[in-house]
């Protein structure tokens, strides 16, 4: 079973990973966006880590709702509402249980991803974060490790696609040949989930 501490570790691991990869995310955002995806998410997840340090919600759902609200209040752009909604809606779906099973997490994350699709209007294949999140949720039924691999594969698979949502869509065919920064950062979020599960101590950096 997964407790509030597991979810706090997930968020902390995401913050560490986003900090480490911020420059790469910004570099990916440069040819097809406006070169700030890394710095924006870094600002948001740093705020998430800080608020979770200060307040320690005692249920998994409350941890994710607090994290999501913090992202909406600090990130801006499209990433703020989309990542904020992903975490808030996943958290809401978990309810107020003190511990949740991996199956419950899978179902809740699917609800979160559905909410992101509704909000952003994106579907798989549009070259967005959805392209790594949807396969990740499907693979989560198997294991955290499988979810990580599926998310990474999904992010890589955005390269040949033409963007149909977000700022990259303005480039039309010129968006082809670039890996999507949003799908890449979403893969970091999923990888951090696996990190939190596999090496609980190592994430407290």
């Amino acid at each position, binding site marked *: 079973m997964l407790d509030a501490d597991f979810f706090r570790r997930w968020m902390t691991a995401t913050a560490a990973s986003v900090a480490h990869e911020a420059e790469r995310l*910004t570099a990916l955002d440069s040819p097809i966006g406006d*070169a700030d995806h890394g710095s924006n998410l870094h*600002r948001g997840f740093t705020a998430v880590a800080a608020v979770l340090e200060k307040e320690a919600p005692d249920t998994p759902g409350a941890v994710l709702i607090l994290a999501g609200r913090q992202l909406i209040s600090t990130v801006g*752009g499209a990433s*703020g*509402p989309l990542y904020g909604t992903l975490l808030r809606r996943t958290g809401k779906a978990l309810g107020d249980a003190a511990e949740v099973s991996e199956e419950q997490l899978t179902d809740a994350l699917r609800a979160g991803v559905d909410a992101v699709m509704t909000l952003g209007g994106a579907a798989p294949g549009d070259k967005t974060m959805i392209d790594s999140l949807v396969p990740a949720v499907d693979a989560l039924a198997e294991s955290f490790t499988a979810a990580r691999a599926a998310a990474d594969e999904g992010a890589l698979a955005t390269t040949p696609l033409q963007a149909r*949502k*977000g700022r990259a*869509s*303005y480039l039309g065919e010129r968006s082809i040949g670039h890996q999507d920064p949003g799908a890449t950062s979403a893969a970091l979020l999923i990888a951090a989930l696996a990190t939190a599960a596999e090496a609980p101590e190592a994430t407290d950096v």
Partner: protein
Amino acid sequence: MRMLINVAETVVADALRGMAVAHPELTVDVENRVVVRRDAPVAGKVGLVSGGGSGHEPLHGGFVGPGMLSAACPGEVFTSPVPDQMVRAAAAVDSGAGVLFIVKNYTGDVLNFDMAAELAEDEGIRIAKVLVNDDVAVTDSLYTAGRRGTGATLFVEKIAGAAAEEGQPLERVEALARQVNENSRSFGVALSACSTPAKGSPTFDLPAGELELGVGIHGEPGRERRAMMTSREIADFSVNAVLDDMSPRNPVLLLVNGMGATPLLELYGFNAEVQRVLTERGVAVARTLVGNYVTSLDMAGASVTLCQVDEELLRLYDAPVRTPGLRWGA
């Protein structure tokens, strides 16, 4: 890339601190990033709130004042503001007559203003929204995020601002804003990429001797790249792109807008060519505005915006305005 900044993280806050001392007629809340006209809320007047990423100055903070915006929310550079800023701005300017959100069509701006509208309505503030999407370089279809909002934002904010100043009700101010947007089209070209403080180098690679046609205002490349053209050729291309998408029957407002790094010497020369094409195409220009109004940091280049007006819209455009970035008749 050399920039006149301290560090990238404080660029927006530093600019707001400087704006506050330059313009005592505005209330600049540096911490919460909201710029409000000092006399807000004005009794009986609809509040006009806009906002978007920083880096487009004077848009939007520079358009706050009597006759135009009531408040603006500057986000991080090229990143939309967060809902907290917009709710705070709405609360600061609402006199009970309601608030109009003027939103440029970018995914981030749309999502954050949507969330803010919901939160503000929870607080009992009546909110209307208008989406600006005038850029003809983007295919407006189910398969894109839709047309970007660019130069027409100035016309929407000016004309709706004048209507609000007259005390017109929210529904009417909203309808006018919508009408101005529907009557407006823009097209932009870049002669250089811009450099964001966060990246510190040009956002895309544009070799000497080439230009980007159909750019927006966020340093993203445009719809195609070509060998450098003369001012005359660029004017032909831009105006024709706009007129392919609209057939103005009435006279138009013309905005010849600089992207931030193109000198007025070049912009006025470009304006001469733009007016020549318009004359050739039989379009009468009622008013012309030339300058850097909707910019993209240090990008070189220009955009052309046309807005078809009737007598009422022209009267509201001519009405007095007193803001840091636009000022006449008052």
